[in-house]
Structure formats: C-alpha cells, structure tokens
C-alpha cells in the first residue's frame, strides 16, 4: 500500500476538514471554554459527528458502522486537532470502540447503537498515577457473587464526567508491575459506589478522578478474558495512542501554518520577520520534523489496519515522534509570535495547551521512546 491517501481517503479528509472548519472551529472551542461547560463539548456537535458517519466509522459494517480503519480515523482526528474541535470522538469512537470489538455480542448490542447515533460517550479508566503506566495498575476486581467487585481509583479519565460507559482496566490477579492478571470491564457510569470528581484541564478539556468504592458488576461486564486482558488492553491503548498522535499532528500542523503565516505579515526593523534567515531555518527545520512525524503516524496506521505485528513498534515510534515534533511546533509558534503569542486573544497559545494534554495522554514521548528501546530488546 503506498504511503499516501488514496482517493477515498482524500475525499474523507476534504469533508472532515470542511465539517470541522464550519461546525467546530476554534471559535466554537472558545465558546465552550468561556461558558465553563462542565462536559467540555457540545452534545449537538456530537450528533452531527454521527450524521457525518464519523462516530461509528470504526465499527464493522455488519454491526451498523462504516467498517473503516485507523488511517481514516486518523484523518478525522487530524482535522479535530487542526480546529481544536471539542468532542468525545477519540475516547468513544476510537478507543472505546476498539475495546468493545473484544466484547461479547450482548455488550456490543447494548452500546454500539448509541455510539453510532452520537448519543453515547465513553470514558477510558486506565491511569492510576500521574504518569501512564498501565502495567502498574493496582485497582482490584475481586470475584463477588456472579460477578466482580471493583475497588480503587482512576485518574485522567478524559470526558469522564460526560461518559455513559467507562472502560475500566483492573487487576483480577497478580501484582502491580505484572502484565498478567489484568481484566477489562465495561462499567455503567451510573453504577452504585462509583463517584467522580471532574477537573478542568489546561486545554479546557475535562478530566475526571473516578473512585470505585466496591462497585459491583456482572460477569458479562468483562471484555475479553479474565486475567488475560493485557493483549486487549494494549490493542485498545495502541488505537488511542496512534489516534492521539494523529490529533497531535493536526495541532502541530495548524500551529506551524499559523506561524508561517505570521512570519509573512509581521514587520520589524522595516522587514517582514519571515525574511530573517534565523527564523527561516527554524521554520524549515520544523517543517522537516513535522513531515517525518506525519509519515511515521501514517505508516503505523497502515500497519495497524493490516494487522501487521510490526504495528506495535511503529505506534510507539509515531507517538514518540509526534510528541516531540508537535511540541517543537507549538513552542516555536508561541516564540515566533512574540508578545501576542502570549495573549489569550490569539489562538497559538490554545494549541500549546492542547498539545500538552495530548502529549501526556496514553504515554508521553519519553514513555514511547523507552518502549521502542524495550521492543528493540534493550
């Protein structure tokens, strides 16, 4: 498969781009931010995502979705990133759907229609500390009656406050640090003994701390196999990681574009600042970094869609590279905008904040570079 978008994919990009620019540009983001909306996104917009076919795009056709792949999801996510469009698309339609693919028919039947309709929102409850360390999960799920009893705390549950369904990783056996003994659960947000404290994050998205104080779930809440959840958890996380990388690429591309534009407008010392060679070289270097990061992301998505075992390594490469390149893009963006880059009035700072949250989500560049080293055997 050649490493560029085919005609269908290019069409999808055009329509996703037009949609986000029209329906959810940065002004839309600002509106929701300034209104202090507790969900952090518009449920109306989420319905429009459904009308566009985005919300169920990864769901197989025989289950009512479009049966598309991660390249296509990445196309939508990149446009989301470019426009800072607030939505539960990544957690719901990418990560949540990837997890539900491993669930039984009853569970799928219960949740997929709502996702396709843009009515259901999913939150992902994996992290327990400030840094993403999935093998360190300590939260317990003890056998109890016909099901399990979940006890522990989760944090950085993005869109947790608005979620209807939580995908929860808990330990049914083993000890923190072990990859064996983990199990994935689909937990209704309204379950008894489940409480939540929402926190507005730096990018105005909503994260939540979730407290499981002996939450009882039935056995059919299990996704995949008991004790052997690491593989399905990794698949779910990897879908989220490469999705976050795509969204980050959109953030970085928009930051770079608006910065290059600014270089062509702002005058100092009687010249456009884009004439200054030092800035030209930095912009050109940034362009190279962004292009390489973009290639890594697309390659990883193609491998993932092809079921290639090399996808895992390439996803780690892509998340690490996108993290580093996009961080450079927003830093250079703010610095080259000078004083106005520091103001809330200009958009460039919003991109810096969004990058910060995306970079941290499901493992930062250091986490993934370390993972690359481990996968290479050192």
């Amino acid at each position, binding site marked *: 498969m050649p490493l560029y978008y085919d005609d269908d994919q290019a069409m999808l990009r055009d329509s996703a781009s037009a949609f986000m620019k029209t329906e959810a540009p940065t002004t839309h983001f600002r509106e929701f931010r300034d209104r202090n909306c507790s969900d952090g996104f518009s449920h109306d917009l989420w319905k429009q995502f459904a009308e566009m076919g985005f919300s169920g795009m990864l769901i197989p056709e025989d289950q009512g979705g479009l049966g598309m792949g991660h390249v296509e999801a990445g196309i939508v996510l990149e446009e989301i990133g470019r426009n800072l469009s607030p939505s539960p698309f990544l957690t719901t339609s990418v990560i949540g759907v990837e997890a539900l693919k491993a669930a039984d028919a009853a569970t799928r039947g219960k949740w997929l229609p709502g996702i396709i309709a843009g009515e259901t929102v999913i939150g992902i409850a994996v*992290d327990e*500390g*400030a*840094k*993403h*360390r999935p093998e360190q999960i300590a939260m317990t799920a003890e056998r109890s009656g016909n099901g399990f009893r979940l006890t522990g705390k989760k*944090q*950085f549950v993005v869109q947790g406050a608005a979620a209807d369904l939580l995908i929860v990783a808990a330990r049914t056996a083993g000890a923190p640090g072990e990859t064996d003994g983990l199990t994935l659960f689909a937990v209704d947000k309204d379950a008894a003994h489940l409480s939540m*404290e929402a*926190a*507005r*994050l*730096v*990018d*105005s998205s909503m*994260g939540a701390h979730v407290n499981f104080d002996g939450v009882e779930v039935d056995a059919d809440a299990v996704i995949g196999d008991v004790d052997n959840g690491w593989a399905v958890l990794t698949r779910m996380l990897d879908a989220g990681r490469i999705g976050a990388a795509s969204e980050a690429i959109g953030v970085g591309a928009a930051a770079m574009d608006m910065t290059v534009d600014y270089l062509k407008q702002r*005058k*100092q*010392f*009687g010249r456009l600042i884009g004439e*200054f060679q*030092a*800035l030209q070289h930095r912009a050109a270097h940034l362009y190279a970094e962004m292009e390489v990061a973009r290639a890594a992301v697309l390659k990883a998505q193609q491998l993932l869609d092809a079921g290639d075992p090399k996808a895992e390594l390439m996803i780690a490469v892509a998340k690490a590279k996108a993290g580093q390149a996009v961080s450079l893009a927003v*830093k250079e963006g*703010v*610095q080259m905008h*000078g*004083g106005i*880059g*520091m*103001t*809330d*009035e200009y958009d460039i*700072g*919003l991109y*810096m*904040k969004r990058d*910060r*949250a995306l970079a*941290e989500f499901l493992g*930062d560049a*250091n*986490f993934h*570079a*370390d993972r690359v080293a481990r996968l290479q055997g050192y």
Partner: protein
Amino acid sequence: MSDLETFRAETRVWLEANCPPEMREPVRDETDACWGGRNPTYKSPAQKLWMDRMAEKGWTVPDWPKPYGGGGLSPAESKILREEMAKLGCRSPLSSFGIWMLGPALLKFGTEAQKIHYLNQIAKGEIRWCQGYSEPGSGSDLVSLQTFGEDKGDHWIVNGQKIWTSYADKADWIFCLVRTDKHDKYKGISFLLFDMATPGVTTKPIKLISGNSPFCETFFDNVPVPKDQIVGELNRGWDVAKYLLGHEREMISGAGNAPVGSLGALHKELMAQDPLLRAEMAKLDVDTLAFRAMGEKFIDEMKAGKGHPAQPNMMKYFGTELNKRRAELVMAAGGSDALEWESDGSGGGAKPRQWLRTKANSIEGGTSEVMLNVIAKRILDLPGA
C-alpha cells in the same frame, strides 16, 4: 577575624533573629511577592514585618548608597549578604521594577535631586513603578516607537500607546520612552517619569494564556509631564533605555538568584521508572549548576568592571531558555496532575500556569532572537546589518 568575617557573622545573627520563618520559603510566583506601592498589599503580617525590617537597614537595596535609602554595602559585603540569605532561604523582601530597572538607571543618569527623591521612595517600597517601552508596532524593533511628547514650554503633552507594561494597572508611576524629536530615530527619544494618576492615562489588562494578566495596554491621551521629570538629556533617552535594558536582562536571566534545587531529586521514585525523563533531569541539573556558576562569575566580573558589557544579553538568553526547559520538565514530571487547571488538588492550576508564564521569559525584555543578534554583533563582532 577580618572585617568581612565579622560582617558575615553579624549578618547571620541578624537574619536569624529578624527574618520570620514564613519569609524563609521561596516566592511561589509573582503574586506571592511583596511589591510595595502607595497602596501596598501584604500576604501576611510576616511579609510586612520582613519588608519593614529590611528597609530600615537599607537592605532592600544593599549596595545603594545610604543617602538614597540603600545599605551602603561594598560588593564583597553584598555578596556575603546574598550568600547568608541564601543559606537561610530568606526571600527577597521587595520585588520592584524600581530596584531592578529604574534604580540603576537613575544612579547613572539621574540628577542628585532625582536620586534623593526617587531612590529613597524605591528603597522603601513607597512607589510601585512600571515600564513604558514596547508599542504594538515596536516590539523587538523598539526604537521605532511612536508615542510622542509635544514640547509645551515647561511640560510635554504625551500621546500614544504602550503595550506589555507590567502591572500598569497596579503601578503608581511609569518610566516611559517618548519620542520628542521625529527626525532622528535614535536621537529623538527621551526617558520620562510620570504619575499614572495623571489625567489622560488609562490602562487595560491583557489576558494571557496563563489566565493571568500581569501586563497591560496603556494609553496616553494628552498627558502633561513636567520638564523636570526627564532622566538624562533631552533626546538622549535611548542611552538610558539601553543601560536599563542591560539591567532588565540581567534580572530576567536569574543571575544571582537564590539556588534552585534539583528537580530530579524531587521525583526520585518517578526517576527510577522513567529513564528518559531521568536523563533529561540529569542534563537539566548539569545546565542549572553550570549556569549558577556562570551567574556568580557574571556578577563577580560586573562588580569588578570586568566582563563584556554586552554579557547580560547572553545571560538573559541562556537563563530564560533554561527556565523554560525547567518548566517543561516540571510538567513532564507532574504528568496528568500537572494538567489540572481548576481543581482542588492542583492549587488552582499553579503548575500549568507557571509553565505558561515562563514562555514569556524569552520574549519580555528583548526576545531570545534579539539577544542572539546582540551577541553576534557586539561580542562576536560578526558583520552585517
């Protein structure tokens, strides 16, 4: 015991007796500091007590002459005071653009009357100053500024607009670059002082990405400024401005600041789990400790009249870039905790707000790019415009 040893011993005893425990904590951020002014606000009685005691000894400005409200200390004594304050962790009693920026300029360019009057006010924290340099079209290219002072005999009438005036909405007076001759770009600027309560002065805070508004837009609409409120000669304000910028850059560089601890050491457990972050922390420690040595060397050389006069530009460049890097690593070590902007556990998002604040370090007081230009031209003597 030599005189200096005696001074050190006495200073330590005095600090131990007079610096309240609450004032031995580092200043958390700009809002945690004492800024003085006509209507001063103190975060605690201890803050006021510490300010009063230090001002009484002249140690808000230890090396200024005593007649101007300073402590009259020699360079060696100043260094000892700094060292002893650092050992106890004593914070600086007063944060002030008057001390950091205007004061040094007045000491060099002011008349004796101006020194007596303004420097004493600054030393005692009675007047809070702000800086009127940048304009919307004149950022890095400062000398293109357009704010104009029309000569009206015994006063000027000033019209124009400034931007990035730090805390202008809270300041009592402004030191301001004003064009008094439209024909010469450099030799047509004067350095004026005036009261922000003068009719015609208005300010408008600028909301920043950190959510705070430490800077303002400031508008001058027919503001009268008496002729004796000029520092230096008419139309030679650029000399004063350049001199002052050197001090501002020195200040922003963090040279001579209290020691900053190892960030990696604060996150030992994480360091064991995150080898790549640990590598960055190790390199940060190397650069932090090396730059601290550079700060000490820089101050020693400046006090001895050695060192290149353009060196503050290098200090400003390196110090602010390092500070940004440190803030990035604070965020990385903080993980998703440090993303929280509004939550109980996050102190109102202190970490992300401070992180965003540092991004201004390499812009305010001359961008890193301008610093590099100056180093290239004035220190390395490279050719070209």
